[in-house]
């Protein structure tokens, strides 16, 4: 316990870099996956190829991915950029499937109605399909956010500063408090981000929780 009190600044620094290393790939992955999912939903041939590729990419063990990237893109072995890129690719791989399902969940009648009322291609995609796919997209975003937070800590094994450092250092110095502090903070970070996503979802899509309840009642 005294260790925690004496090292608040170190812990804070690790927490900040952990936050940054998990949020950037989550947001990037989300934004990149939207057009991919939209196209997958429209073109079956693309869907088959992209979703198989996504599932192959997601199968790659994270530590191996962190370590193999430098020889592909020419970064240094201990560069935090490897983690950001690897986690972004994982995020796209997961989100592409959710985005495809999300866009597929929009009813064709609604699309026809929107077209009939004069929406153009872009307006349809951004103002009708995107919001209606929202609940499924949010579900994917929550999966990506939790897994990113937990995968970032693996980066400590290749020397990247984040909460995972509390595990490797705590292990070397046989300091239980340090490891436990790390576990608690990683879990708390994941849960707080998840709660923020749920809250954000309610704010952006005030209709969604009610809609889900109505659908559940009908089934």
């Amino acid at each position, binding site marked *: 316990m005294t260790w925690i009190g004496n090292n608040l600044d170190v812990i804070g620094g690790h927490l900040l870099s952990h936050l940054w290393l998990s949020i950037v790939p989550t947001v990037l992955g989300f934004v990149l996956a939207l057009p991919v999912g939209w196209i997958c939903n429209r073109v079956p041939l693309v869907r088959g190829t992209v979703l198989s590729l996504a599932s192959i990419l997601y*199968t790659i063990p994270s*530590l191996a991915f962190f370590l193999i990237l430098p020889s592909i893109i020419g970064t240094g072995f201990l560069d935090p950029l490897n983690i950001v890129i690897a986690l972004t690719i994982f995020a796209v791989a997961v989100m592409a499937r959710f985005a495809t399902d999300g866009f597929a969940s929009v009813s064709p009648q609604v699309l026809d109605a929107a077209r009939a009322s004069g929406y153009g291609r872009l307006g349809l995609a951004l103002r009708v399909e995107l919001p209606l796919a929202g609940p499924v997209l949010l579900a994917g975003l929550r999966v990506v956010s939790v897994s990113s937070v937990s995968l970032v800590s693996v980066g400590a094994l290749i020397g990247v500063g984040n909460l995972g450092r509390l595990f490797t250092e705590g292990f070397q110095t046989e300091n239980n408090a340090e490891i436990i502090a790390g576990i608690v903070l990683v879990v708390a970070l994941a849960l707080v981000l998840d709660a923020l996503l749920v809250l954000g979802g309610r704010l952006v899509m005030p209709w969604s929780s009610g809609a889900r309840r109505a659908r559940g009642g009908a089934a």
Partner: protein
Amino acid sequence: MSVASETWDWLTDSANWEGPAGIPSRTLEHLQYTGMTIAIAAVIAIPLGFYIGHTGRFRGIAVASTGALRALPTLGVLTLVSLHSGIDLTAALVALVLLAIPSLLAGTYAGIEAVDPATVDAARSIGMTHWQVLWRVEVPLGLPILIGGFRTATLQVIATATIAAAVPGAGGLGVFLLSGLAVSDYPRVVGGSVVVIVLALVVDLLFAAVQRLSTRRRVSTPERV
């Protein structure tokens, strides 16, 4: 791209394919840890999943606790347990079992829940007991999703077992990655990574085949009846 060619040399060097520290024995160790982990996790998660899926009880608790378990950092659990367990596999197994349980549990109850309630009602109305409904109706029909849970859990464990080498007592393919990194032997690091990636892809392919078989059997059942 000298690392690439040196990695090729490392992978094709026959010395790396022999003995207890060679690629085949490390791969075998890796698969052994994965098998032990999945077996232990299955003994815990499958009966629980059957119970939750069949009765619908404790579902809220299961969803919330699997969510929290998923957030648990495996490296943290591994190092913490290792400080207390000494030099053996305990730490690796505890950390990996905790990792495997959420996917297995979710796959099991989701598989049981996905069975059409009308089918379950029909089975009850012809006089099947709870056990018969579970074993003859819910499990066979939920099998593809159940196997999906096994697939996710197994791949997570194969991927994460590479970090087990961060504590003493565990071998596996992670040894190449972490020991190579410690002495800046990058061909070994990249070569080991390639082997883990290939292993994961092969296992995933096997699961895909099994899953397809189980789906096909399910679809053809009504024709046989």
